[in-house]
């Protein structure tokens, strides 16, 4: 019986596997482009601007308060003047004016809250930022979709290409391939820019990188502070470790 053979093969494997690293593996799923993240104030502010202008009309970031943006070098007045379209006080959360029921009618699904989207989209294939960076650059024209847009990374996505005026319009190239079981399937091979937008490809990539950097920052504002605090905590604990070791040694002198 084939299971028995497999069992023996696996038994041999178990014995030899012990010392092998288990990290290496074949991952199925999409390959993601590495997001060139930048956490300087200028990039994050640019990202915030894009987020507020293009995303916040439909997607909330209900866990984030406007005044959190003071952490990326903006003053309360600047936030009030430039970034707040749907709130009165800087202590308010980034909410959407769009009604969820309407959104469901229009897009088939209520746009998700984006407060922690950069953390949620992480997987074995890459970080959440990588996913978002790839996703926002892979929209293409698809007349079969209600919005006229589709996405190579997220097929059948409900969201239209909101940044199209910046990127321009892409079209997909398909090839027909054998799927290995004798069925011919249509596979997406690549995207082509057919109508340029207001930005060049490199400029667009950079803007998306800023936006994704902002989304990553928003996933846990102050993550840089957390890391710098970590070094201090480790320094204190290391001193404590040395002292407690010396204390232990002093006490244990008379144990033989």
């Amino acid at each position, binding site marked *: 019986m084939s299971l028995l053979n497999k069992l023996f093969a*696996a038994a041999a494997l178990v014995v030899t596997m012990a010392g092998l690293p288990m990290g290496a593996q074949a991952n199925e799923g999409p390959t993601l482009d590495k997001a060139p993240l930048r956490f300087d104030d200028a990039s994050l502010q640019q990202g915030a601007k894009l987020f507020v202008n293009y995303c916040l009309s439909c997607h909330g970031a209900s866990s984030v308060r406007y005044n959190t943006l003071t952490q990326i070098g903006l003053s309360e007045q600047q936030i009030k003047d430039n970034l707040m379209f749907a709130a009165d006080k800087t202590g308010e959360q980034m909410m959407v004016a769009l009604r969820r029921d309407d959104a469901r009618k229009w897009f088939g699904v209520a746009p998700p809250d984006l407060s922690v989207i950069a953390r949620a989209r992480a*997987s074995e294939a890459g970080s959440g930022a990588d996913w978002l960076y790839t996703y926002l650059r892979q929209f293409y024209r698809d007349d079969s979709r209600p919005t006229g847009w589709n996405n190579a990374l997220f097929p059948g996505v409900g969201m239209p290409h909101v940044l199209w005026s910046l990127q321009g319009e892409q079209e997909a190239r398909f090839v027909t391939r054998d799927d290995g079981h004798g069925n011919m399937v249509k596979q997406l091979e690549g995207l082509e820019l057919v109508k340029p937008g207001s930005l060049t490809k490199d400029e667009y990539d950079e803007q998306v990188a800023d936006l994704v950097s902002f989304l990553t920052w928003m*996933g846990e504002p102050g993550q840089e502070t957390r890391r710098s605090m970590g070094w201090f905590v480790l320094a204190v604990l*290391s001193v404590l470790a040395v002292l407690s070791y010396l204390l232990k040694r002093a*006490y244990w002198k008379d144990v033989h």
Partner: protein
Amino acid sequence: MSCCKIVTEKAQQVLGWVDERFPLTSTYKNHLAEYYAPKNFNFWYFFGSLALLVLVIQIVTGIFLVMHYKPDASLNAAGVPVAFASVEYIMRDVAGGKFIRYMHSTGASMFFIVVYLHMFRGLLYGSYRKPRELIWLFGMAIFLCLMAEAFFGYLLPWGQMSFWGAQVIVNLFEAIPVIGPDLSIFIRGDFVVSDATLNRFFAFHVIAIPLVLLGLVTAHLIALHEVGSNNPDGVEIKKYKDANGIPLDGIPFHPYYTVKDIFGVTIFLIVFAIIIFFAPEGGGYFLEFNNFFPADALKTPPHIAPVWYFTPFYSMLRATTSDFLPYLWAFVTLVAGLTAWSVRNVWVRRLCLVLVVGVYWGFFGLTVLGKTKPLFDFAILGIHIGRGFDAKFWGVVMMGGSVLLFALLPWLDRSPVKSIRYKGGLFKTILTLFVVSFVLLGFLGTKAPGYAFFGLIPGGPVAAVSTILYLAFFGLMPWYSRLDKTKPEPERVTSK
């Protein structure tokens, strides 16, 4: 000088007053200053005190989390579940909340790391052997409580993995014949995991299980201090005492082990801090990425994986397919046969026969009870052997049983020596295989069912073999522990 003398006298009076009403001094002596622990504890003996430390961390951080967390599955104005949003509120708007939450979420994983290492210490040095059977059993109960506590707690952030993990595990109870479906509704308080489930899991997580856990930890320690600690040599230090009745190889727990454990604590805290400050998600193992999506009953994630500490047992559940049952039955028959052959008692032999027939009937002969369930035809080496229940039920039995097997160790181990230091190559080999299979099962449990090592070696058969090895470690222990060529134990503990 006279001032100090007055203070000391006063303090002694107060202490005397207390001691007449509460055994303060004697408790301090019995459990710390005059509790004699073997002087040869090594690295593995840090994890008991560390488990206690993590327990305290979890309780203290938990108290602060409960102050701000809201067990409410309804959607807020932004369309986010209140419970999910309250966790993010803690992360962002509560002063220090981020660290409290990360300490708690990391603490859960560290609890299991520390407890698994603590249990492994028991396997290495035979800490479960007579007279410490009850310490081991209390420990097992603590382990079960810990699993329940972690399971209930994992629902609370109300993310996708929280929701679907709970859904999968509660659904497992449906596999129990007759009462199963009603039981799972009773546990959830609803037909699906819902607000009712969230609230009762919250109650269990913050009140019920912690109370039981604290009681069991107390019992574990009282039992330990009654019989005294084992040690890496596995010999009893109480055999050789000095004129005052103090074990020659014993040293007072306080100050010797308190200062040593403080050192262990600082090293643990360094590891803990590295995770909290630099990798609080633990690469997706401590905080699963998918759990940053709010729970959505309409969107089943493509791959539902329990958190890493459950995966070895979850893997065994998955490995128990209808293809695997015949091999499992063959294994049960082997163990029962060996038992009947080596125990020359007619009642034990009858019991073994009942076991073999019973398990066979349960696996392949349940045509009467199994009418409501899909039945499978089973074959071993191509020979038809019968029809039985859905393998899911046996998977559940396997998952529960594989945890409970640890409780039998005190009676399964027949080796003349306790410590691995004096055990032979046979035991060492089997223990190694056990650890390797446990790790492999744990790793495979985090992966989707079709996972293959290096894209080549399918995970399914590896899990099946690992499951058999896991079972063999326990099931064959009475024989291999006796066959093993042991070395003589020393009379007294050896230094280092």
